[in-house]
């Protein structure tokens, strides 16, 4: 659990972070979202004391971090940098082994863990002996991630971990990332300025502007209950796509036809509309079998899905 209490940081005359407070629960992923220069990185760095706040306190698992030795604190927190920051003079294997070596792990343990990670992160086996400059940008970011994950820290800070990637690669890495079992047991604070990415990965989003926190909430809350104009406008451009992502089949359950025609393997109603549409579009199926919360099943086709979604939207707008 991470808690920030009214932390502020000034650089000269710019107030980079202004009385920011939030709490990240155990195993939760909080995404800091905002435009460039709004103070996301600064906020993140105050959590592992790369930057010391001018005011306010930070607690990790209930303990004030200013009472801890900064080096010890940092070895216990995974950190993925905005600029990757791999050591150019170390091989990939050596880069991944930095923190384990600081913690005096034995060689065998480091080797086993490294093998495990490169498999999970889909890095080629032979890349271990390469130097960072011999890897593609995406591969470098995976190494950066491996380096942060290697000691399996319970807290993970990530600063635009997919920032250096093109859109196609980014989407696929995000998917892989979301599927990583290892990440599901971590308390994560992640920074991004990409709204889609935030919606894809966040349990909750912390929207920032000019050093201040504007709104904290689930993606759905941000979308349907924006606290002010800034929050509304921030999402406006990609609203429809975001709504498809946020709304689950379960949400539009009442608006779907009642009958279940097929038997067979059913999908969970936790599936969001976006993913359901993708399935319908990419597979040769014209209908999906979905089982809802109270064990009843329904089949939907593309038309029924969009219709149901629109009805749900109207209900939201008027309700």
């Amino acid at each position, binding site marked *: 659990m991470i808690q920030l209490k009214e932390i502020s940081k000034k650089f000269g005359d710019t107030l980079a972070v202004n009385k920011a407070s939030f709490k990240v629960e155990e195993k939760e992923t909080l995404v800091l979202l905002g435009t460039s220069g709004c103070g996301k990185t600064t906020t993140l760095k105050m959590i592992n004391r790369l930057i010391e706040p001018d005011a306010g306190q930070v607690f990790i698992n209930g303990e004030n971090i200013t009472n801890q030795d900064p080096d010890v604190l940092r070895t216990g927190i995974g950190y993925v*940098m905005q600029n990757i920051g791999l050591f150019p003079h170390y091989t990939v294997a050596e880069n991944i082994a930095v923190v384990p070596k600081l913690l005096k792990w034995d060689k065998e343990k480091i080797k086993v863990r490294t093998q495990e990670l490169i498999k999970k992160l889909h890095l080629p086996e032979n890349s271990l002996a390469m130097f960072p400059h011999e890897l593609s940008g995406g591969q470098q970011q995976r190494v950066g991630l491996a380096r942060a994950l290697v000691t399996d820290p319970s807290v993970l800070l990530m600063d635009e971990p997919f920032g250096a990637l093109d859109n196609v690669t980014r989407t696929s890495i995000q998917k892989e990332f979301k599927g990583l079992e290892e990440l599901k047991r971590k308390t994560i604070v992640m920074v991004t300025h990409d709204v889609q990415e935030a919606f894809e990965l966040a349990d909750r989003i912390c929207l920032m502007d000019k050093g201040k926190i504007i709104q904290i909430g689930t993606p759905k809350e941000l979308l349907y209950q924006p606290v002010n104009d800034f929050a509304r406008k921030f999402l406006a451009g990609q609203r429809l796509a975001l709504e498809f992502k946020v709304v689950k089949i379960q949400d539009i359950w009442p608006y779907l036809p009642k009958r279940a025609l097929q038997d067979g393997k059913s999908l969970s109603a936790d599936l969001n509309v976006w993913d359901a549409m993708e399935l319908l579009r990419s597979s040769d199926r014209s209908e999906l079998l979905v089982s809802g919360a109270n064990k009843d099943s329904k089949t939907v086709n593309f038309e029924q899905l969009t219709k149901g979604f629109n009805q749900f939207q109207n209900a939201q707008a008027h309700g």
Partner: protein
Amino acid sequence: MRRHMDEHQQTLWQFMHEQSDKLFAQTLQHVGLTFISLLFAIAIGLPLGILIARKRKLSGTVLGIAGVLQTVPSIALLGFMIPILGIGAKPAIVALLIYALLPIIRNTYTGIIGIDQYVKEAARAMGMSQSQILLKVELPLAMPVILAGIRTATVINVGVATLASFIAAGGLGEFIFGGISLNNTNMILAGAIPAALLAIILDALLSLVQKMDFKKLKKALCILPVVILMLGGFYALPSAYGSTLTAGFTPEFMGRQDGDLGLKSTYGLKIHTIVISDAVMYKAAFSKELDVISGYSTDGRLKAFDLKILKDDKSIFPPYYAAPIVRDEALKQFPQLAETLNLLAGKITDSVMTDLNYRTDYLHLTPERVAKDFLISTGLYKAPKNGHNGVVRIGSKIFGEQYILAEMYSMLIKGNTDYEVSTKTGLGGTKICFDALMNDQIDFYPEYTGTGLLVLLQPDPKIAKEMAHDKDKTYDYVYTEFEKKFNIKWLKPIGFNNSYALMMRQKQSKDLNVNTITDLKNYLDKN
């Protein structure tokens, strides 16, 4: 021309072959000197560079001081060292170290601050301590730049180390400056060529190290300190004294019959000897760094540093006249020159010259002042006529007496003729001065008949020996030979006799009861 070249190269080869022991020893000393000082420079410069990379505010001051130190002329720096560190290895190493410092500090500093800030931040973010960041990240990444600095420092050191011979620290400078003093081109080249090769080879080797990738570099860096230490070890500090007393002789004295060669052959003197420049020799004797030195009988520093001349009881140091030598061409061009220069003939006796030297060397009056006072007191001084009838160019060697004489001649010419004067004083050794005369860069300079005979003419040893004890015979001989060989005329002798002399501190001479060179030999044999 080709034939000439061939001959030349062959004799150089012969010289090197003949002197291979010395050459080998000097080269080792040179390498040793270079690397010992390099080692110290790294030991000091690297931490300083790291310090100022951490505390940037200090960088201006530290780099400024190192920069200023590097602009101090090397000879001056060596001179400053003597009162503090004496002569020999210590001051030479310190002086070299000072020159090597700037490139090492500067490159360590720029190497470290040039590292990508994100890499440093990553190191911090992963929980590395300051010292771990330094050792595992900053130094390895800055290493190519630091090595470039070490490479520069090494090349500088090879060059400056040639000057170490001035203060008896050995090295290839012994041949180079000995050759200059003794008019021996082969000797100069025997020192200069290895020194240049050394610089080129070390530069190339270090550039290879610099270009290695990180993995190889890691290994190379483990070996490098060992190599530097080993090479530094070549410079066995001259502690293996062969005798209880130490002599310091000039390179010129070392190679002359009326010098070290004579001391060995006639007296059988066996003394631990180091080669040192005339400029620092007296001071070194005074501060007990040296016990016996080769000086000039008229030198003012004799009195200034309370030294005593040991009696030359087997007379191997014949007295010689001093007289201006002039190019015949110049005598034609300036018809009044000869009679003007001869105004001084016979005017300066031994004791007068010693006194004049004392005034510059001990009382620290300027040579100009001393010259003027003397000319006024003898009624020779005339106010300058400020004529414009051509320029007479005067040369002088790089020691006190010659400066005074050059000033006197300058005043005499200005006062008695319509010629203008330009002086080129402080021309290194005999060879430099004489070559300047031969190449029409100066018109005359004061020379000694002994030097003319033994260094410039280098006649058959038999002829030299015949002449050695008769100063007039010597004068006649060089007079005719110079005319024949060089078209250079010896004007009338100035009066004083100059000769080499062995000197000791007054007190030591009394304590050891050593008054003659034979006494010295006996003392050395007994102890």
